[in-house]
């Protein structure tokens, strides 16, 4: 395309942000010269004192914290939309805070893959009233053509006691990400304190103290979302609305070349229906669950492809949700076994193969535990949480029993969990198999919610011995996922365990420190600590990688995949994350 007119002479840039600030400052509701004079009299550090008589009741503090957190999430939502006029409604008329810009750079360094990290010198911050504060935020994210996310999260809180003294000191984590028109990405992450006061029934920000601010950026992107273009961009009903998408923790996935055409295919079990995406030569996929016999029934949890009958093709096992009744009896749906006809079409034949008993199977793992040449299935059984709660938060024992389905010559599956020593009743989410001691029999790690994880060492007799404690991989916590892979380039297989942690949980635990001592508190603290990496040592055991090494800081983590995404000869880690994200900004 040729220029349609001579290059016009542009006047010097008048920044929209500057105009916003000027316009906002002319607003009649902005602080009077007197109050701006008061700003000048403020301590420039804007240090917010702790309440001198703080509320100590944990429940009251958490209730108020959640009120403030939800207010700030709404504020965040306005920032994400760059609706600064609306965002101003969250600031008290007397608000003064540290501006996000301009700030001098304190440190700059280049990291892996050319990531550029900038640490700002917050000592160069300036104090400004509300309009200037919002203008500085607008300025900080001005170069972004799209704001990808904006979150102001309450990480801690103290509130002043007394009916009239409705104020609190909030520890805040500020996190915003954006994309330039050219597709380059930038993130801003900082910490600070806010003073909040209840004005006319709503929590308002009256002070904001910025204590750190970091920016990370990188030209281009690592991954590009091509879902829609590749024909897999399915978007279904809202979670929890009864629109065929009401499972909390299923949504498994499995990949194999089911029709032998040389392209990977993808099976997704789900609530309501299943999906089978067949890979094509042009890089796209065709959804053919119905045509290939795996569309129904519903309530699929996890799935695995494996050749159960050793005929050379990939058969498919699918877990379906089941539960344990009050009398302990297993009820609900049975696992399914779809037999491949060699061309990628399937016939379900589970009942004839002995899969007639229901299981609470959330994930499936394939292994030949007895080395008989036929692949067996380990089923991780959770609990039916809708009907029966876990009987402990730190060592629950009332989950449904795990199952080990022995494959008898490709003709029948029989549950041998009891005999094999793996019939635990923890709330098991996930397992991964590997021969970690290279002794010729397969070992199995099981990640359990609400308690300790287990490492079962295999034996030639097909009986497992639990050895998590002796090998140093108990990982007390809310286990969600597990993967084996060498993260330290010593040729030994290390262990990555994903765990659940939550902002609210850490907030509450932060307050319990004084009330609970010793081992119990340590255990509770571990519950909220996040993922774990265990490095195999030369003695056959494992050592936990210190959290300062990074690589573990997720939140409500689920699956993990270890792969060398940049092909530099070192395994990296990807982890899915988050429980439920609703349409509204409110969170718990």
């Amino acid at each position, binding site marked *: 395309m*040729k220029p349609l*007119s001579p290059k016009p002479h542009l006047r010097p840039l008048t920044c929209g942000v500057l105009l916003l600030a000027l316009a906002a400052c002319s607003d009649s509701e902005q602080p009077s010269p007197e109050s701006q004079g008061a700003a000048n009299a403020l301590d420039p550090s804007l240090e917010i004192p702790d309440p001198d008589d703080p509320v100590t009741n944990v429940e009251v503090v958490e209730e108020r914290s959640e009120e403030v957190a939800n207010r700030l999430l709404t504020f965040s939502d306005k920032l994400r939309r760059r609706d600064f006029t609306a965002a101003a409604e969250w600031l008290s008329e007397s608000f003064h805070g540290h501006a996000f810009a301009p700030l001098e750079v304190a440190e700059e360094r280049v990291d892996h893959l050319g990531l550029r990290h900038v640490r700002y010198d917050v000592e160069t911050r300036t104090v400004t009233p509300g309009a200037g504060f919002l203008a500085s935020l607008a300025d900080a994210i001005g170069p972004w053509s799209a704001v990808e996310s904006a979150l102001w999260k309450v990480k801690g809180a103290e509130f002043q006691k007394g009916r009239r003294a409705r104020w609190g000191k909030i520890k805040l984590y500020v996190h915003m990400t954006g994309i330039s*028109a050219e597709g380059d990405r930038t993130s801003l992450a900082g910490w600070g304190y806010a003073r909040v006061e209840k004005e006319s029934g709503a929590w308002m920000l009256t002070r904001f103290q910025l204590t750190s601010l970091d920016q990370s950026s990188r030209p281009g992107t690592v991954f590009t979302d091509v879902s829609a*273009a590749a024909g897999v961009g399915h978007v279904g009903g809202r979670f929890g609305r009864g629109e065929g*998408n009401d499972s909390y923790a299923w949504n498994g996935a499995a990949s194999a070349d089911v029709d032998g055409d040389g392209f990977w295919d993808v099976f997704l079990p789900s609530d309501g229906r299943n999906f089978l995406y067949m890979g094509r030569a042009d890089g796209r996929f065709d959804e053919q669950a119905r045509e290939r016999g795996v569309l129904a029934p519903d309530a699929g949890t996890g799935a695995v492809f494996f050749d159960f009958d050793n005929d050379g093709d990939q058969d498919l096992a699918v877990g379906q949700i089941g539960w344990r009744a009050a009398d302990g009896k297993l009820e609900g749906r049975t696992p399914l076994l779809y037999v491949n006809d060699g061309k990628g079409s399937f016939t379900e034949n589970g009942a004839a193969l002995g899969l007639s008993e229901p299981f609470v199977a959330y994930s499936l793992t394939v292994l030949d535990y007895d080395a008989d040449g036929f692949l067996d299935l380990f089923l991780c059984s959770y609990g039916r949480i809708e009907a029966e709660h876990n009987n402990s938060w730190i060592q629950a024992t009332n989950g449904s029993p795990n199952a080990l389905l022995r494959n008898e010559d490709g003709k029948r599956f029989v549950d041998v969990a009891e005999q094999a020593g793996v019939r635990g009743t923890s709330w098991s989410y996930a397992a991964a198999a590997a021969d970690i001691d290279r002794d010729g029999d397969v070992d199995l790690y099981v990640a359990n919610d609400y308690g300790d994880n287990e490492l079962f060492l295999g034996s030639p007799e097909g009986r497992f011995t639990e050895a998590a404690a002796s090998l140093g991989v108990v990982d007390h916590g809310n286990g969600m996922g597990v993967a084996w892979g060498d993260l330290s380039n010593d040729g030994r297989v290390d262990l990555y365990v994903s765990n659940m942690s939550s*902002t609210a949980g850490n907030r509450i635990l932060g307050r319990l420190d004084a009330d609970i001592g010793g081992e119990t508190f340590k255990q509770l603290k571990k519950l909220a600590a996040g993922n774990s990496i265990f490095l195999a040592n030369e003695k056959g055991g494992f050592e936990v990688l210190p959290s300062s090494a990074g690589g573990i800081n*997720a939140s409500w983590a689920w*699956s993990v995949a270890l792969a060398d995404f940049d092909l530099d000869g070192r395994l*990296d880690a990807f982890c899915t994350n988050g429980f*439920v994200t609703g349409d509204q900004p409110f969170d718990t």
Partner: protein
Amino acid sequence: MVASSAQKSQTEKFTAQEVGETDYLHHHRAQLFKDGFSFSGNERDKLWFNRGDGTFCDVSDLSGSDSPNDGRAVLATDFDDDGDVDLFVHELQRERHALYRNDLNQRYGGFLKLRLKATKSQWEAIGATVVVHTPAGPVAQVTSRGAGFSSCQAPELVFGLADAEDAKVEVHWPSGASETFGPLARGGRFLLEEASGEAQPIAGKPRRLPDPLPKGLRLGIGEKVPPFLAFDAGSEARRVDLAELSGGKPVYLNFWAKYCGPCVQELPYLEQLDEAGEVRVVAVCMDAPNDLELAAEVFRGRGADFPNYYLGAEASDTVQGVALQTIVDLERLPIPTTLVLDGEGKIVQIVRGPVEKALQKDGE
């Protein structure tokens, strides 16, 4: 904490006595989600790169794979056989299926792709450990079917070789036997059969996963922009028919906002294009409706006089036209973006960033 949130439920109230003590929390949680609340929501998927010094670099924010849609299972597989590992994520919220193409390609190293066939145990060699000797040291991976959380990876291992031209491979088979292969050449795809001692090359089928649809756009090249509903500077609903406005000329449909520096900067240039008369420029301001007056002031302040419309309510009883949301995703569209339409109103070009810059680039 669940209960306190549920007490804010907008659609249903209930007590422990009504639903029973056991179901109280779950009933509340279900109601919470029905009302659109989150519970540990907006927690984005994470990606850490191994620095090789015992530490990991968190690149989640900059990865392009940091979805907030509550990912569950993940497949890390080279779906397009181009040598690097892509991602397929099964997400909870709205049952989304997300395929992420790895765009690092081989910038940081070459690859070696391996499949196993056991002969002294079940042929799929599940549980085998494969060690590849790379310049970064030996790296071990395990053949697995069912790990992570509910995730069954494809039966192929992808190893990065950094700048090595080839690599030696050790396999520790489920039978207990160990065997070495190679060195195997960089960029190769091989089948390793137990006790054969020979790596058999596999013909590759590399193909590129397709390019994404333009971010934030719901129409692509060749599609016609229908008359849409927008608002004028007086907040009056208008039916914007670009064919009518252009009189058969090409149209530059520009999306801008007052908070966007590059957008504001190019307004005089767009005015000049419009005045030159060869094309018609029509703008849509993406500022929040609350900011309409401020945005109009900025628009006028930059000397722009071409038609400019604003966001507002999505429906109008009196004005016909599709909602802007059917043309663009208002929350995802990077700005400035300009759709270049031909005389018939079809999209012929999508300009990301300032128009002038794109015109200069095209002219070079």
